[in-house]
């Protein structure tokens, strides 16, 4: 029962022989993909599949879901809750929650519109003040959480109440304020780049593809130069190809309708920027560290309190932006803006997109994917004429269904991994 131990090997560690190196070329890509399916390590694929499924179901039910103008509407409406969801991703990365974001969205929209409409302030200035107020609110939450030690849940629950009170107070007796006709806020939702010029859409899509491809190439070059394992060209090509197809098809669809919607551009821009901050800067690394193990982060000399406070400022700032988009979409700021399902939808978006509620795992792209799922369900159901009770039940079922796929694949991953 004994084997002869090897005694010839050199002591300095070479590449671990147990690491399954993928075959080169396309075959290797396919093999790797198969392995990933088996071990459930599929990243965003299940959510994207869920999205496709939702689209297919609603299209077959209504025949209108894949209309260019419906799709355009969806891309416009994801911006408001989507931006709030981006803020939530940051908070969730810390393993915390921010319940106040709906109210913060509401109070910011109220401040911006009251200042610009009733007090006649310059609209840009009004917007800046509103965002500034939101940042201050976030800093206050962060302070009570990080410095006083009140659980974030309680701080932001108190905020949820207090800021919606403030929102009512700011709007005052006269209530709802219409946003300025054709003003900055009004245009957030309604403007199409170049007033619907299709050139903008194509340019935007191609820019995206080129940046993505170039980034991947450069990275791969640097890694090879440093003697590290790098993505093979075939894979870079394939990935860029997939991105290109998505971008170009989207551009084509948008151009069938009104062109490139401003809210989509801003939302995508913010997702890209925040993703960069999280993955490519020390600050982002610190957020992950605090979320993954606060004690380890503290012992590494990270200023945990500052990370926490700043994250709550970011989430409040994003909520303010989101609130402005919602005001733009409904044409007014009112006492209800930001209440109801807004917060839940945004949190759900982040979670559906794959951000963990327990900290340390997630990305802002999940806000985009998740809110697309949710907004597709909402819009799809709007096209189906059933009564409100049934609609609620279906929404619940579809929401669950969209995540089951993802969970099943993750479960495989879990059972084949540690823990």
């Amino acid at each position, binding site marked *: 029962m*004994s084997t002869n*131990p090897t005694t010839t*090997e050199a*002591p300095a560690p070479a590449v*671990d022989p*147990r690491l399954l190196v993928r075959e080169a070329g396309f075959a290797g890509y396919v093999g790797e993909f198969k392995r990933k399916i088996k071990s459930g390590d599929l990243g965003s694929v299940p959510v994207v599949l869920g999205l496709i499924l939702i689209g297919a179901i609603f299209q077959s039910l209504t025949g209108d879901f894949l209309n260019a103008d419906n799709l355009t509407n969806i891309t416009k409406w994801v911006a408001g809750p989507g931006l709030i969801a981006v803020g939530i991703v940051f908070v969730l990365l810390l393993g915390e929650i921010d319940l106040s974001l709906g109210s913060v969205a509401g109070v910011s929209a109220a401040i911006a519109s009251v200042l610009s409409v009733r007090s006649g302030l310059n609209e840009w200035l009004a917007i800046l003040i509103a965002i500034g107020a939101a940042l201050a609110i976030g800093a206050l939450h962060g302070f009570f959480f990080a410095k006083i030690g009140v659980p974030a849940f309680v701080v932001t629950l108190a905020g949820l109440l207090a800021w919606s009170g403030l929102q009512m107070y700011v709007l005052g007796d006269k209530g709802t304020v219409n946003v300025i006709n054709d003003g900055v806020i009004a245009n957030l939702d309604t403007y199409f780049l170049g007033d619907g010029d299709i050139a903008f859409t194509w340019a935007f899509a191609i820019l995206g593809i080129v940046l993505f491809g170039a980034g991947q190439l450069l990275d791969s070059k640097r890694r090879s130069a440093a003697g590290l394992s790098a993505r093979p060209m075939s894979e870079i090509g394939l990935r860029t190809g997939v991105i290109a197809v998505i971008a170009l098809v989207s551009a084509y669809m948008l151009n069938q309708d009104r062109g490139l919607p401003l809210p989509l551009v801003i939302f995508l821009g913010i997702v890209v920027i925040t993703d960069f901050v999280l993955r490519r800067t020390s600050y982002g690394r610190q957020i992950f560290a605090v979320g993954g193990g606060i004690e380890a982060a503290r012992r590494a000399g990270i200023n945990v309190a500052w990370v926490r406070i700043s994250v709550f400022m970011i989430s409040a700032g994003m909520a303010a932006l989101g609130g402005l988009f919602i005001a733009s979409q409904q044409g007014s700021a009112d006492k209800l803006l930001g209440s109801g399902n807004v917060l839940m939808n945004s949190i759900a978006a982040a979670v559906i997109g794959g951000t963990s509620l327990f900290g340390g795992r997630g990305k802002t792209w999940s806000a985009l994917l998740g809110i697309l799922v949710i907004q597709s369900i909402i819009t799809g159901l709007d096209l189906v004429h059933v009564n409100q009770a049934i609609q609620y039940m279906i929404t619940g079922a579809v929401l669950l269904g969209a995540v089951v796929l993802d969970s099943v694949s993750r479960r495989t991953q879990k059972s084949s991994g540690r823990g």
Partner: protein
Amino acid sequence: MKEMVHVTGAPVLALRGVSKRFGAVQALTDVHLEVHAGEVVALVGDNGAGKSTLVKTIAGVHPIDEGSIEWDGTQVGINRPHDAQALGVATVYQDLALCDNLDVVGNLFLGRELRRFGTLDEVAMEKRAKELLDTLSIRIPSVRIPIAALSGGQRQVVAIARALVGDPKIVILDEPTAALGVEQTAQVLDLVERLRDRGLGVILISHNMADVKAVADTVAVLRLGRNNGVFEVASTSHEEIISAITGATENAVTRRQARIAEEAK
């Protein structure tokens, strides 16, 4: 190197051709292992050799990908920790796996609480806990403080004591003395011998060759996830085992010794 396998009847536990993979890492490849009643098998190997992974497959933490596990000669499926416990496997994990929020007593009896009129018998458990810890000669300020407040060695002793609650047939100890002081280490080695004498099978993982040589009957070496020899302790030298572990006769240990000898001159 001699091919001598210690046999006293059929093995209680036998692994046959076990493989286990994590994502892109093949942690175990075609591993065989046998443990007999009243035998102490030392499982040794370099860091990352797959020892803990092997132990976890036996304990039901990770189900195996390929191969089979035999218990008293019949093939069994161990898919969750509960299965292993039901067979009679008690495991002390390297990462201890204690509940930070429960106190020492709570952790010791977790899953096997003593009861009285259907409710927890805290008095009996606390008494028994004190006795158990005393035999391992550890001083813990109070058995009612949460595990989170214990020192590294104190936690390790609690984890070891846990394995003694209940009535196992095989005890697996994954680096049980890593965090222990000299006195506690001696107690654990005594304990291992007592378990053997009571006819239990013991799998002991350790990087300490002195300890291994002191209590083990057989040494199984893992290297890069594969078997790399099984040795009869009595008839194998320290150096033979080390070179099976590192896969080289010349290694950092010998180099260091050579250098020190050199400097001493």
